[in-house]
């Protein structure tokens, strides 16, 4: 692995993280006095002052900023304003539920999206292709919350087959995972299709056809590995979609994950928890994208020698 390539990527990742931390801090601190918001107007000044000191909100902003940074470096994200426990504990409790939901949904979207995309590309402009692409556009266009509500209406309220909210059994997992998985399956199918088409049109695949390589071997050996390259990048972005989708999906199905935690923290104006979730998501996604870049450089030697990022950032 080219060290310079890795260095540039790492530097960008760290800068991005710094930007996110600063953004979170500035936005959330600019917005007013969280203690007053939390406790309301009917509390005397002494109590307000006590809580401000407790949370370090009476210090000057630069000091709060530095303390915040120091805290993050030590893995301390402060305390939740609503239930007084450490933010890391509150988030850690919610993470397994989100991971379970996210992985199941990712598997569903991969299992549905990639094969459909390949089938569509191989049958370009035929009826199968039209059908798959219509499904993809449907999946992309239907909002998570609407799909979720349709499923609840059908399977919980009318047929009474599946529980509409909460977590516990495998039955609870089905509807949220399908809701979340299908929405990204559509766009994944589209990317797989266009990536496959792009490769199938390349001269090396035509050359292989000309010299008599069988169709199946041409697809599996010449086309698929090259088509997988942009897919890896897209998967990095899909992670973001999954997280965004989880915020809504978890709220619809009352799934006790990070997404629902965020929504309730935002409603309760629990600054510390919101910041914690923001940072945790940022770290997860930046790490994932860094990994994607590395895998990208590994499977496509042109990238790592040029020191460029995927997606043509610095083409």
């Amino acid at each position: 692995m080219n060290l310079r390539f890795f260095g540039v990527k790492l530097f960008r990742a760290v800068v991005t993280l710094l930007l996110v931390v600063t953004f979170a801090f500035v936005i959330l601190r600019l917005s007013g006095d969280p203690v007053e918001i939390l406790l309301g107007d009917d509390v005397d000044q002494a109590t307000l002052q006590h809580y401000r000191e407790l949370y370090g909100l009476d210090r000057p902003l630069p000091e709060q900023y530095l303390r915040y940074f120091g805290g993050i470096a030590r893995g301390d994200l402060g305390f939740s304003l609503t239930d007084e426990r450490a933010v890391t504990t509150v988030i850690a409790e919610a993470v397994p539920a989100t991971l379970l939901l996210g992985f199941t949904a990712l598997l569903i979207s991969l299992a549905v999206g990639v094969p459909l995309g390949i089938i569509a590309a191989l049958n370009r402009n035929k009826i199968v292709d039209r059908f798959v692409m219509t499904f993809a556009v449907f999946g992309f266009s239907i909002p998570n919350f609407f799909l979720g509500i349709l499923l609840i209406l059908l399977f919980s309220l009318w047929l009474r087959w599946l529980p509409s909210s909460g977590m516990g059994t495998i039955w609870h997992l089905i509807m949220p995972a399908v809701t979340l998985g299908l929405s990204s399956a559509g766009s994944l199918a589209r990317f797989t299709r266009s990536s496959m088409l792009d490769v199938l049109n390349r001269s090396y695949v035509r050359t292989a056809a000309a010299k008599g390589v069988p169709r199946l071997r041409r697809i599996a050996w010449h086309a698929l590995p090259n088509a997988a390259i942009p897919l890896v990048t897209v998967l990095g972005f899909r992670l973001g979609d999954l997280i965004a989708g989880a915020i809504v999906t978890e709220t619809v199905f009352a799934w006790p994950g990070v997404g629902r935690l965020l929504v309730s923290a935002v409603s309760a104006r629990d600054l510390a928890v919101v910041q914690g979730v923001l940072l945790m998501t940022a770290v997860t996604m930046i790490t994932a994208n860094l990994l994607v870049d590395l895998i990208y450089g590994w499977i496509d030697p042109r990238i790592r020698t040029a020191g460029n990022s995927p997606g043509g950032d610095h083409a």
Partner: protein
Amino acid sequence: MPESQANIHAAPGATTRFLRRYPPLVLAAAGFVLFTLLVALAADWIAPYHYTTQDLANRLKAPAFLGGPEQYWLGTDELGRDLLSRLIYATRFSVVIAIAGTTIGAVVGTLLGFIAAHFRGWIEESVMMLVDAQASLPFILLALAVLAFFGNSLVLFILILGINGWETYARLARGMVISANTQGYAVAVRALGATPFTIYRRHILPNIASILIVQYTLNFPATILLETSMSFLGLGIQPPLTSLGQMLGAGRAHLLSAWWISILPGMMIFLTTLSISILGDWLRDRFDPTLRNR
């Protein structure tokens, strides 16, 4: 394009040519988009009631076609407000907000892309770093944080929707301007003594406009989905104003007794985003020469 011509065996008739050029699905999508725009524009004239008019004697009534009272075609909500009128106004709010948001993003992004491509160096690096930072986090997270803590003003909400998606235009514009700068026509015009601004405005922008317009069409459904999602969560458009997402979210409480309150705006969101996505795909296929040559 000898390849594509080789595939044509016989000259098709006029109808076939028209349908090949404008598939029925695309025509239907364009029709629905037009319909939605007309509804949004004419809301004041076509809505039978104002969207806040309450009729507490007629709460949670079913639509007329499901046996509800005649005067409320699509039934009423928990405050006895006419759902048809609310749907019409919600469509107006959602469409107007989405147009405003998408346009802000397109203008800001394109401008930054041009700036990055023109100045290169550290300015370009900073723009691309912002692009990376934005792409590194699901935008709804940032949007939720900003909105909840600054309170819910309509202007702020629209600005936030505008920030969503700017990075795609910036990336596209930057890449295309850099490559256009080295192409024959730009070099020739520059040699004739044109200023960079003239080249960008009169020569490069028209050349890349089609791709930016396609991106606008592709970005539009995403803006609608973001707006409706946030309003659905109760953190976007606030009552007494309404939007399709807000209606849907408020109707959730009555899903068992009055499912139509949620399903009607849901269908409206779905059909709108679906139609625009279909149009966007079609536009992209027509404008993208690499796809056309296949």
